[in-house]
């Protein structure tokens, strides 16, 4: 068990700098998800933690010890790769046992550990098979078993579920989180899938272009996104953005947008005259005939439990999650309202939360 600390970490490939000044700390037992689109540096950060990439700048600490120049094998880490990186010429048993074999652990002890891992992961019947004789989900579990037997202080996952189909992905998501609840090993998990981040993480680190955009619990990141970028990235139906200007009308602060005047919470830090962008989550928007926002309905998409209403307004496409009983023919005028506490306000220039 261990903490991991990044102190002003930077990474360059030749003259090309892809990461600068990344600092944060991962506590013992924590499950941290590095979230961001491809190319944001999350995998590079993970590979630096593993020792597969050199650290160009700053200090990387595992359990308080600087490990920048330490060989991967000495860092007490275990890693699950995106494509599993199983040893193709070894059977499942040897794949899981390999790290113990090279460490010259007694054979009886190896057997015990491999059988424990196999039982935990439902792999007992497959120990005699080669990786190519397994399905994607089974291979993924072998990769996890390989990490489990190492008794590493930190588990590193590099998009381990991205090669699985949707159903299996949802299943493995809960499996991995359950395993973490049982083993309590400090875990760093890289993904571009915000659902994985929301469902699994104790703490989410949202990354963008080699920098940290926000660090927080899933609820923090969802309810109080630190920037327009984070608001856009998190949430399974994409957030609506409306540009506008802050005004004060009848002593109440509001934002004037082309779609309508949206009242803000009284405690808002937004100043009158400021150019802003407001973010409204589709789930927070209600159809309300007295509401301030107006648009024309285009399409209702029924999702079973509820429905998505697509509208066109002066600010473009606008989505609201509505009751599935709602029936609207295309071209109907619809009005909406949003509770003031659910209006996210971002500075138009810096895109930072106000």
């Amino acid at each position, binding site marked *: 068990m261990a903490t991991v600390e990044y102190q002003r970490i930077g990474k360059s490939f030749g003259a090309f700098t892809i990461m600068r000044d990344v600092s944060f700390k991962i506590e013992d037992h924590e499950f941290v998800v590095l979230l961001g689109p491809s190319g944001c540096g999350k995998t590079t950060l993970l590979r630096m933690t593993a020792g597969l990439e050199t650290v160009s700048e700053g200090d990387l600490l595992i359990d308080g010890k600087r490990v920048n120049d330490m060989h991967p*094998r000495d860092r007490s880490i275990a890693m699950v790769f995106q494509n599993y990186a*199983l040893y193709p*010429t070894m059977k499942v048993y040897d794949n899981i046992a390999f790290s113990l074999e*090279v460490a010259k652990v007694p054979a009886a002890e190896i057997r015990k550990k491999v059988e424990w891992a196999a039982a935990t992961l439902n792999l007992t019947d497959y120990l005699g098979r080669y990786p190519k004789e397994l399905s994607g989900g089974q291979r993924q579990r072998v990769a996890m078993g390989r990490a489990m037997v190492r008794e590493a202080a930190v588990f590193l996952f590099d998009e381990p579920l991205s090669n699985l189909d949707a159903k299996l992905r949802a299943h493995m998501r809960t499996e991995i989180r359950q395993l973490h609840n049982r083993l309590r090993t400090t875990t760093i998990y890289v993904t571009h899938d915000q659902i994985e981040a929301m469902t699994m993480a104790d703490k989410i680190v949202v990354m963008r272009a080699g920098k940290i955009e926000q660090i927080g619990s899933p609820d923090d990141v969802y309810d109080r996104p630190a920037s327009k970028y984070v608001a856009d990235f998190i949430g399974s139906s994409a957030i609506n953005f409306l540009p506008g200007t802050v005004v004060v009308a009848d002593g109440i602060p509001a934002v004037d947008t082309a779609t309508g005047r949206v009242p803000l919470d009284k405690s808002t830090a937004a100043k009158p005259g400021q150019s802003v962008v407001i973010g409204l989550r589709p789930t927070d928007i209600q159809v309300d005939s007295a509401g301030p926002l107006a648009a024309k309905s285009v399409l209702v998409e029924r999702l079973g439990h509820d429905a998505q209403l697509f509208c066109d307004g002066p600010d473009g496409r606008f989505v609201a999650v509505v009751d599935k009983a709602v029936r609207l023919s295309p071209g109907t005028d619809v009005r909406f309202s949003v509770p003031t506490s659910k209006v996210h306000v971002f500075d138009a220039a810096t895109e930072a939360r106000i």
Partner: protein
Amino acid sequence: MAVAQVKRIAISDSPWPWLLPLTALLVVFTIYPLIYNIWLSFHEFVPKSRGLKFVGFSNWIQLWNDTRFWSALGVTFLYFIVALTIEIILGMSIALLLDAELPGFGALRAILSMTLVIPPAIAGMMFLLMQDPQFGVLPYLLDQLGILGKGTPILATSSLALAGVLVAEIWQWTPFMVLIFMAGLRALPVEPYEAASIDGASAFQMFRRLTLPMMSKVIAVAVLLRGIDLFRVFDYVFVMTSGGPGTSTYTVSLYAWQQTFSFLKWGYGATLSLTSLVIIMVMANLFIRIAKVRW
């Protein structure tokens, strides 16, 4: 009319129109010579009548009792095993070395393949000159190193002649192994090595547990290609020693050639060639069966 005919062939279910060209080539160049060879091994050429005479199994009986044949087979096997072993080990070592991307290695890889464009007979001549007891560079170097006495005629010394021939063989064909192995190394996935380095494997453990097993198919192909060639060795011994001194470098191919073309014993030559063919086929099949892997 012609169009209609083409159409009829194209829609016919019979595979023969498509197989015919290849079958014809096979029959003319492989099957007929093989059958003729078998037929020939039961006959012998009679110079007086300039014709062939049926001799039954006498060629095969002669072969069984022919000490020169057994000695040639022994020499061939020795040559085969020594050359193959050294070429694999040396080839793999050089391939692993050249696989590292260091400045100048690209040029080195290109130079390496140059030995392969030299005809083996010419390479044999080169090494014949290099081993000349009076002015050859090899005896000189070995003398300087204190390994051999001054002016030792390597190719004329029974205990050294085969080694002298093997030097040419290994010089010319190790690069072939290097090229095959290097292509194999280049095709290996990088992820298992990353996983292994996290798992704590040393460089040697990675080579033994990852590289070697993952390369086994490539090594098998190289062994098969080179092995078959090695068993038929002719050029080097023909040019460098003519099988001598005594029978110390006398191989089966050389013996078969000599029986056929010097002594005009066509039937016996055919018998020797067929025996070689059978041995190669049996060895190759056994090898393929052993080398088969499940992963």
